[in-house]
Every structure is written in structure tokens, then in C-alpha cells.
């Protein structure tokens, strides 16, 4: 039985993120999650591999005591894909930010998800470019003022969850950096999922975009403005646990239990395993303050993974193969002898 402690996954490198950066909390969650993942999957320490791109979040591999590859801007998903396909016995984690994954690396992001390669993507979303010091990102809200949008952005942002579902993603979860246990749980569930798992972690950049998520995520706002979803549990939230979500026609609506004859039985049950992404799409798109921001595992459905199919095809072809080595290959097909 494999047993590790968080200390086993902490590297000896000095962590160089800014004091107060949300990344510290996420690292904390990961270090706690990895022993659990190792235990659940029966994976030894040396089977864990972290791959990143460029940006603050992408320094992550230096800070976990695992195999690590710090790539180039935007390409983490492609590099992680190569690692996993080459060696499917590894637990492969990809760490990147909103700029890295959704701007320069957008193409690799959607195609990794489309292929459903069994990698776990941690997407740190702080809605800003931090390492280049404060330019707007593809998730910055419309109109936000940054160094490269002094008059406000004129671009519509991506919603990462919507992109994941649009790319036919099989797993999407969302957490907040300061919710260390929820983030940890999302990571553990992501690792348990076969296929591409995306965990969006709403992260605070204390220097360039401080408090950008606070209007729903701060301690005082969180209970009434977020909902933590659990598979097969009713969608209930709020300080007093008396608010819930119901399906009203084709829309999700917030109701109060006890008002207008609404009882707990009327509240929608969360089914993360429902293949039809309709409800999941509505859940990932809920925006505060009108609706609570959905946290937890929103989607977790089974489908073929790319790596399993690579393996199956290899086995199938090799079982009936006539060519077993290069000499066989060179001598196959039309040949002739010169006497």
C-alpha cells in the first residue's frame, strides 16, 4: 500500500511567487492532494509528472517534488500530451494560466480536451497577465482597464468552462484559491477521472488584479454568491442553506426554500455524470451577482480516452501482425533478387 505525506511532494526550491499570491494556496492544495491521489491510484511517487507553460503559474513544477517540465508559452498541453502518450503509466499534470492556456495555447487546450487524453489540467485564472506585469487576458471582463487597455478592453472574454464543454470535455471542476480543501478535492477527483480533466482555479493576483473575484468570492460574499456542487446532491447554497436552483423552462433560476411553496424536493439534483452537457453548460455560465458561481465538480462523464485507444489499436494490430521487426519490414512487399 502506497503511503505518502504532503512533505514527500514538497520540493527544496525556494518558492518565488509574490507574498499573498493565490498560487501559494493552490500549491498547498496540490501537495495535500498528491498523497491522496497516490493512495487512490496506487501510484508511486516517481510516476507523477508536472508540465507547465509560461507565466507565474507555470513555475509550479519547480515547487513540487516530482518529475517536472517547464515548457514554453502556451505549449504545456501539447508537451503533456506527448508525455502521456509516450508513457501512459504516468500521472500527468499540466499547470498553466489563463493567458498561457486560453490565448497563446488556446489551440492545444481545446485539442487536448477533444482527444480526451488522460491528463489533469490545473488552470489558474486570475484574468490578467501577471508575469509580464499587468496586461489584459482572454478571461478579463469586457471593459476592464489594464496597461494594454487604458480605455477599457473591447474584447469579449472566454469562459473556460464553456470552452471545455464546447471542446467536448469530459471533466470540468472549479474552485477558489483560498478554498484549499475544495481545490484539493477537485484535484483528487480530476486524477480519478479517465480523460482530460480541467480544474479551473479562480486565483487572485495580488499585484496586478487584486480582489478581482472578491465580488463573489470574498469571505463575506462567498456563501450567497457561490454554490459548491456535489454529485447527486440538491443544488442548495447560501448563508442559511435556504437558497436553491431549479429548472424553470429552459433556464436555471434561484429560489428560496420555504418561499412560494418551494420545498427541498423541488431543488435540482446535480448529476455530474450526465453525458448531455445542457445543464452543465448553464451551470458553468452562472455569473454573480445574479446567480451563484458554480464550484466543485460540474462535469465528470465517461468516454474513451485517447491513450486507451492508442494502446488498444497497438494490441489489435500487433496480434495479427506479420511484421515483427525492421528486417521483416525491409523484406516485405515487392522485392527481387539480383544474382
Amino acid at each position: 500500500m502506497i503511503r505518502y505525506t504532503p512533505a514527500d511532494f514538497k520540493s527544496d526550491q525556494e518558492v518565488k511567487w509574490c507574498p499573498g499570491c493565490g498560487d501559494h494556496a493552490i500549491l498547498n492544495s496540490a501537495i495535500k492532494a498528491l498523497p491522496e491521489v497516490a493512495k487512490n491510484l496506487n501510484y508511486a511517487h516517481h510516476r507523477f509528472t508536472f508540465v507547465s507553460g509560461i507565466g507565474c503559474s507555470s513555475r509550479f513544477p519547480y515547487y513540487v517534488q516530482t518529475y517536472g517540465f517547464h515548457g514554453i508559452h502556451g505549449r504545456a498541453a501539447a508537451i503533456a500530451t506527448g508525455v502521456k502518450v509516450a508513457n501512459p503509466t504516468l500521472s500527468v499534470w499540466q499547470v498553466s494560466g489563463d493567458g498561457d492556456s486560453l490565448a497563446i495555447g488556446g489551440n492545444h487546450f481545446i485539442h487536448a480536451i477533444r482527444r480526451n487524453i488522460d491528463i489533469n489540467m490545473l488552470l489558474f485564472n486570475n484574468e490578467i497577465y501577471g508575469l509580464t506585469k499587468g496586461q489584459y487576458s482572454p478571461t478579463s471582463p469586457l471593459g476592464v482597464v489594464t496597461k494594454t487597455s487604458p480605455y477599457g478592453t473591447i474584447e469579449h472574454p472566454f469562459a473556460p468552462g464553456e470552452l471545455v464543454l464546447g471542446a467536448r470535455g469530459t471533466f470540468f471542476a472549479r474552485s477558489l484559491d483560498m478554498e484549499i480543501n475544495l481545490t484539493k478535492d477537485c484535484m483528487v477527483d480530476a486524477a480519478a477521472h479517465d480523460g482530460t480533466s480541467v480544474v479551473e482555479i479562480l486565483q487572485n493576483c495580488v499585484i496586478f488584479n487584486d480582489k478581482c473575484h472578491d465580488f463573489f468570492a470574498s469571505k463575506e460574499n462567498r456563501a450567497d454568491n457561490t454554490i459548491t456542487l456535489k454529485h447527486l446532491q440538491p443544488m442548495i447554497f447560501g448563508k442559511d442553506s435556504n437558497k436553491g436552483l431549479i429548472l424553470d423552462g429552459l433556464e436555471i433560476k434561484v429560489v428560496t426554500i420555504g418561499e412560494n411553496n418551494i420545498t427541498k424536493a423541488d431543488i435540482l439534483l446535480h448529476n455530474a455524470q450526465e453525458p448531455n452537457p445542457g445543464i452543465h453548460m448553464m451551470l458553468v455560465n452562472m455569473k454573480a451577482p445574479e446567480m451563484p458561481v458554480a464550484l466543485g465538480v460540474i462535469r465528470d462523464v465517461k468516454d474513451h480516452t485517447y491513450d486507451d485507444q492508442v494502446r488498444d489499436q497497438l494490441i489489435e494490430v500487433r496480434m495479427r501482425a506479420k511484421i515483427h521487426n525492421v528486417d521483416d519490414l525491409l523484406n516485405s512487399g515487392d522485392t527481387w533478387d539480383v544474382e
Partner: protein
Amino acid sequence: MTQEINDVVIRFSGDSGDGMQLTGSLFSDTSALLGNSISTFPDFPSEIRAPQGTVSGVSGFQVHLGSSKVITPGDFCDMLVVMNPAALRANAKWLKKDATVLCDTDSFNEKSIAKAGFKTDDPFTELGIEGYNIIMTPITSMTKEALADSELDPKSIVKCKNMFALGVCFYLYNRPLDHAFNHFDAKFAKKPKIAKANKTVLTAGVNYAANAHIFANTYTIQPAKLEKGKYRSITGNQATAWGFLAASEKSGRPLFCGSYPITPATAILEELAKRKDLAVKTLQAEDEIAGICTSIGAAFAGNFAVTSTSGPGLSLKSEALGLAVITELPLVVVNVQRGGPSTGLPTKTEQSDLAQALWGRNGECPMVVMTASRPSDCFRAAFWAGKIAMEHMTPVLLLTDGFIANGAEPWLIPQMSQFPSIKPPMVLEKPEGGYFPYIRNEKTLARGWAIPGTPGCEHRIGGLEKDSETGCVSHDAANHQIMTNLRAAKVAKVADFIPEAKVYGDKSGDLLVIGWGGTFGHLRTTVDMLREQGKAVSHLHFDFINPLPNGVEKILSKFKNIIVCELNSGQFANYLRQSFQKFEYNQYNKVQGLPFTTDELAEAFNKIIK
């Protein structure tokens, strides 16, 4: 009467939908099976079906066969098959003086003659080839006649007309039909009517040529006196793919190819995708960048990783090449060069990516650059690229080109036991004192390759500069100098592990002809031609460009004149000027998307030696 000849060059040309590539392949494969020495060159437009009947839509396939060794597809042809006036217009310039031209009369009507851009209704006079042996044959109508009872639809019937032309050529050069018949049976196993129709038309072509007495003579070409053994036909792209397989087998490292389709390199990915029987993993990536980045990931994970591309794709891969250089991972990038810049001439050949291969990356970013000289030589080159990449822990850029990639030739099948071993510096367990990724082998300066999944060797590498000893991120000024020097020295040291430069011909003389890559056949043929005339000409051809092999300077110093020939404006000549400054270099360059001709080379060489 049957006359024996030493060699012949035949060019099949028609609309890009006329099946000229297949026609040419059937002719060359049949001839290869007869034991002739062969070299082929397909010449096709980049459009799948360019406008019908226009010159830009002409597709050609040239085959050179001989009873002694041929190493080029031939400059000019003895026999030209033209399925329409556009094909005649596009190819008339490649005719030898006494050439035979077989034309499909049915396609030489007023409309198609005008469409091909002729100003008069007599294309032959207009092109100045009225004196040639022109055989006007109603190929299309005779094909229809032959298949009148076949129950095929009119479109399928007309599609068989290329086989009629092939039949005429089979008769003229006394080729047997069995290989083509077997091909139809295999290709149309599920459409026996189509297989039968092709056989019928091919036979009809042979019979027509025999009965109509259109040729005074027929010809035979004796089998070439080739080295004894078992042969097969192979294209450059196929040989490249198979060379990678050989390197994988010898190294024990599984083969991974992440790649994005691009002309003229795609066949490498296609060939490897077939080889699941040899456990190859291919990944058709979402773009060129993902092609190389998935391969870098696979290399980190311990596979022998390769990626295939052509010019524009290499540009896209540049940043990731730097990543492979700084992480010191084994990786082979094969660039099948085509005409540039930008999209350029996708289906035409050129050698103009050399400067990019050597220097086209940010920072001081050296990597091994090598080339292949002939279609079958791509096997050797790909094998060596893998050997060097893995044993020296470096990315290797292998430059082939569209000419040798698509060209085919017979190949004496080697045995894998003849090839050297490949021993990558695997780290299989935790070394005493711990694993540090940039600790090097003294002889090669290669670092150890510890792959994820190895207990106790957890480490991190990446695009940031690392400390030469601890492998930790380092911005230290002195360390950066050390690492820069080490990366350069590691690549330079490869020279001690590759064959020394070897001159062909006499070791001294009036002229040393220098080339690299796919121009080998034309240069060697021309040098041989001049040597037979008693001229003191020798040939030095480069397989390795960075590092250059040992012994070059000594060779250069023995010749009165040096000429560097390449299909660009002088990139290798400049590289040699920089590497060996005391010599004077003449140049012969051509940037037309076409290979050299031996005539133009001979003229250039004769000018220097008078």
C-alpha cells in the same frame, strides 16, 4: 526488330487527374523487377485537381532506367507521353533531340489546344518540335472501344486511358504485364470490374502498338550489373520513416512521431502511422508547434521522438527547437525542403532552408544538422540522426528535399545486424549522491537521460537556463557562459563520432566539386562524365553539416579550384567561407524549384577548368 540500349528516360505527363503518377510507378516498378537500375522523379502541381487542360494542372512522372547504375532521373527524356496539349507544352523543353512523343489525338482538339495557351492550331510547329518522332494515337477512343462491353459507366471507362498509354510503352520497351496485373488485382480486390477493365486496356495498348507498326524498333534494357542480393524500390520519405524505425529498434527506445501534415513531408507521418505492428505511436497534431511539442514531451518521457515537416513548418517549430536544445533532449526533426519563402513552391525542390537550420533560432542555439543524398540514403541518414540524437542528447535537424523525398530507386536491402548499436545514456536508478540532469559524460558531453517513472531521479528541466551542476534555475552570469559553451562544445564533439570527410576521385586536381544533400546524383554523374573525358575533377559531398566532419580542410587544400553547387543562392558556400576562410569558393546556384541538370553543371565546371 528489338534493339538493346543502355538506358532510357521516359516521362509520363497529363492532367493531374489522368493518373500519371500511377502510370509512371507501374512502369518503374515493373522495370525494377526486371533488374534495371532505376531513378524516378514525380513532378506534380500542388493543387489536387488544378484547372483541367491547363499547363498549371500538368502532372508528370519521369523514370530513368539503365543497364548500368543510374543515380538521377535523367535530365531530358527519350520518350514523352502526353495525354493533352497542355502536357506537351509543359514538357517539350525536356525532350532529347531524337525523342519519341506519344500523344492522345483525341485530346488535341481546337478547344484544348487553345486552353493550353497555344496561339496556332499546330502546337508541334509552334513549339519547334515538328521533326521529332511524334506518334498521334487516338488513346481515348480506343480505350472506349476496348471497354465497349465492360458495363462500366463512361467516366470510369475514360479513367482507364492512362493504361492504354502504358501498354504502348510496355510494348516499346518489352516490359511484361504481370506486375501491373497483380497491382490491379490487389488495388481493386473489391471492384473486379475495374481491375478487369485496367487489364483489358493495358493489353489493348500493347496489342495496338504491336499491330499498328508505329515503331520501327522495340527496345530492351539488360538488367543492371548491380551488387548481388535482394532489392526493393524505396522512396526518400519511406526510407526516412524506416530509418527512424531502425534507430528505434537498435536503441530499444519506442518510436513516437508527433507531426502535422505538410507537403512534401506528409508521407513520413503516413508511413509511420502504418507501423503499429512495430509499436510506433504517431500523433497527428493540431498544428506544427504541437507536432514538435508532443515530440519533446515524448522525448522527456523516454521515447525516441521524431517530427516531420517542411520549410514553413520548420519556421513554426523554431521556438520549440530552442526548448529541445536547452533541455538537451534527443529529438529528430526532418525537414523535407521545398521552394520558399513562405508557402513558396510546395511541390518543388530546393535547398534553401540550410541557413535556417543552422541559425534560425533565438539565442545561441546550436544543433546537429545533417542531410541525405539520395532516396535510399534517407534510411542511413535517419538512422544516424537517431543515433546521434540519442547518444549525444541533442536535437538533430535532418534536411532532405522534395526531389529525393518523392524520388524512388532500387535499394539493396540491408540487414539490421550490419548497423551499429545505439546506446542512449539512460539513467536507470538513482546515482550515488542523487541525479542531477546536467551532469555530463566526459567524452560526448551528453547529459544522462532519466525518464519519469524512474525511482529517485525526480528532477525538473525546462526552457529557463539551468545551473551546470545542480540543474536548478540559474540566472547567474558566469553559469550562462558555461552552459552556452557546453551546448556548443557538445555539438562540436559529434565530429569525432561520425565518418571523416572522404573525397571521390583523385585526392588532388584542378577542380573539387562540393555539394550536399539531394544534389548528389547530378553532381556525381557530371563528375564521372568529366573524369571519363580525362579531366582532374573530384567530388566532395557532405552528409553532416553541423558539425562538419573532420578532414575537410586537408581535402580543400589539394585542389586548384573549388566550386560549391547548391539549389539556393549560396548558403553552404558562405558557411564554408566562414568555416575555412583561406580558400576561394566558386559557386553554381539555381533557385527554380528544379534539380540541376548534368549539362548545366558540366558547362559550369568546364568554364573553370577551361
